[in-house]
């Protein structure tokens, strides 16, 4: 029984029409905003993706049909090595960062499952990174990884010899550095979500298992883990989605460089949007990504529903 029907039952004096009309009016602004940001952009994007239009073309975009090229942008996209490399790099960052964040977050969460002195303070500090503005976090790590910076200083103290690694100008180390920044900022999110799931595990079940002789590891595996499955899926899904968009921290740390060593899909699109200004082509890439993501999303939701 829907909410509207419930209300109707207890308040027969006001007609259901009033409720329906009010409901329509209340949802209207949100509907307009959604339509405004999905319908126009999609149509415009589709239109200019079939042309060679660019803001430098000298004509306004409604006249872009003069530069019609049918599907040339879409066929170019298939042979665009830089695009595929950027996609692969984004996938690589995702494949490393999300599992590391998950395991670290889960480990920390299990340490916080029961009370100990100082828990509240430690908890408040540990979740701080995810509230730091990502652009500022990017700048923090930019400073940390300077060749004369504190990371090298700490390493020098540990090894006893001066360390002058140029983190951000080496292709492999720069990639490692941006991943460290991502892990620093988003492990707290995993921790926060997983801890809330762990706390939700009924205590009497855990106690019963202890009485039956189960050790901590067995209790975790057989009682906590199965109950946390849904929460783990949510936590990982959120991070996968956000990690795919990765831009702010990374762009401030390296600008996608050195060369294209840390160029992710968002950075690549940003660069050809503002640098090369080939908007017809960018629109084609953007639409292709939207279509692939929508299909992937539908597929994932079907599987989750099962």
């Amino acid at each position, binding site marked *: 029984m829907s909410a509207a029907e419930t209300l109707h039952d207890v308040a027969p004096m006001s007609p259901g029409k009033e409720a329906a009309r009010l409901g329509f009016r209340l*949802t209207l602004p949100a509907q307009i905003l959604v339509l405004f940001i999905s319908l126009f952009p999609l149509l415009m994007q589709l239109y200019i993706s079939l042309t060679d239009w660019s803001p430098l073309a000298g004509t306004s975009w409604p006249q872009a049909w003069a530069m019609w090229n049918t599907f040339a942008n879409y066929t170019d996209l298939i042979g665009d090595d830089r695009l595929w490399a950027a996609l692969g790099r984004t996938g690589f960052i995702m494949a490393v960062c999300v599992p590391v964040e998950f395991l670290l977050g889960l480990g920390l969460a299990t340490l916080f499952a029961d009370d100990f002195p100082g828990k509240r303070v430690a908890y408040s500090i540990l979740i701080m990174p995810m509230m730091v*503005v990502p652009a*500022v976090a990017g700048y*923090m790590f930019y400073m940390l990884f300077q060749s004369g910076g*504190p990371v090298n*200083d700490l390493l020098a103290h540990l090894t006893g010899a001066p360390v002058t690694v140029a983190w951000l100008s080496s292709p492999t180390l720069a990639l490692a550095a941006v991943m460290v920044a991502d892990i620093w900022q988003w492990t707290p999110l995993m921790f926060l979500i997983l801890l809330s799931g762990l706390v939700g595990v009924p205590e009497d079940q855990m106690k019963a298992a202890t009485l039956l002789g189960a050790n901590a590891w067995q209790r975790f595996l057989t009682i906590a883990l199965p109950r946390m499955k849904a929460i783990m899926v949510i936590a990982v899904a959120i991070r996968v989605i956000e990690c795919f968009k990765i831009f702010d921290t990374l762009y401030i740390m390296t600008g996608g460089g050195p060369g294209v060593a840390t160029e992710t899909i968002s950075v690549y699109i940003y660069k050809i949007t503002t640098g090369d200004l080939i908007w017809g082509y960018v629109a084609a890439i953007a639409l292709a990504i939207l279509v692939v993501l929508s299909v992937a999303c539908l597929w994932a939701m079907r599987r989750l529903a099962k």
Partner: protein
Amino acid sequence: MQRYLAFQIFRYAAILAALAVTLVPILWMVSMAFKPVGEWQATGAALTWIPKAPTLDNFRFIFGQSSSALIVALDKTAAMPIVSSLLSATIGTAIAMSAGTAAAYGLSRFGSGQNLPLALIQLRLFPPMAVMIPVMMMWAFLNIMDTWWGLALIYGIVTLPFAFWLMKTFFDDMPREIEEAALVEGCSRARVFWRITLPMMRAPLAAAALFVFILNWSDYLIALLLTSRNWVTIPVYMTSLSSSMTGQLYGAKAALGLIAAVPPVVLGILIQRHLVRGLTFGALKQ
């Protein structure tokens, strides 16, 4: 007993290590914000973790008072970017919260707008970069490029999913007896929403609004594309703080970074209880 003790020692050691890793980047920036020019890039043995001669020069500098040690002159102080960030994030929050709260109530009580939950999740799923070209074209057409109201409008739309989902779970959880009693008394449904439900929901509304504000305040990419000169926000302005003569203005950037980082961290700790609900679209309630 021994195993218990060993576990406690391991726990504290692990948590302390995590705390150290969490705090070092933040403390380095705080320390940098108070360092005089000479200590900005000191390396090797001269590298200082705590400023030897702490100073407020970096803060004075970004607000336009040139410090004696810095020969660079700013063509623009941090004042306008701070105003721009505040205005666009606040009004953006107001837009998201009013549209989101109304729609959430409409769906929760009257079953209107069944398409919204999924449509809004999809909105959140897509990388903003993939819709920015048409948005830039639309904003240019509407003549709201490089204005705080143009920025506020897109912020309101981008964070609408969070406002909607958060408020929906709050409304779903709320007991309906009082609303129903008021209806029996002869109150109209609109009046019940406005006079009874909303005042009762003051605390959840505030939590959701603060959460949405943090998200808006944290944006970098959208402001980078939609503002250029007059209304750049703090993060965009921050990246411009370098000069060909002196290179990166480390301390000045750190001072501004500190100013940008404080509000969301404070607000985030304030609404700690609701963070999980907000971040998971209400799927999890702490």
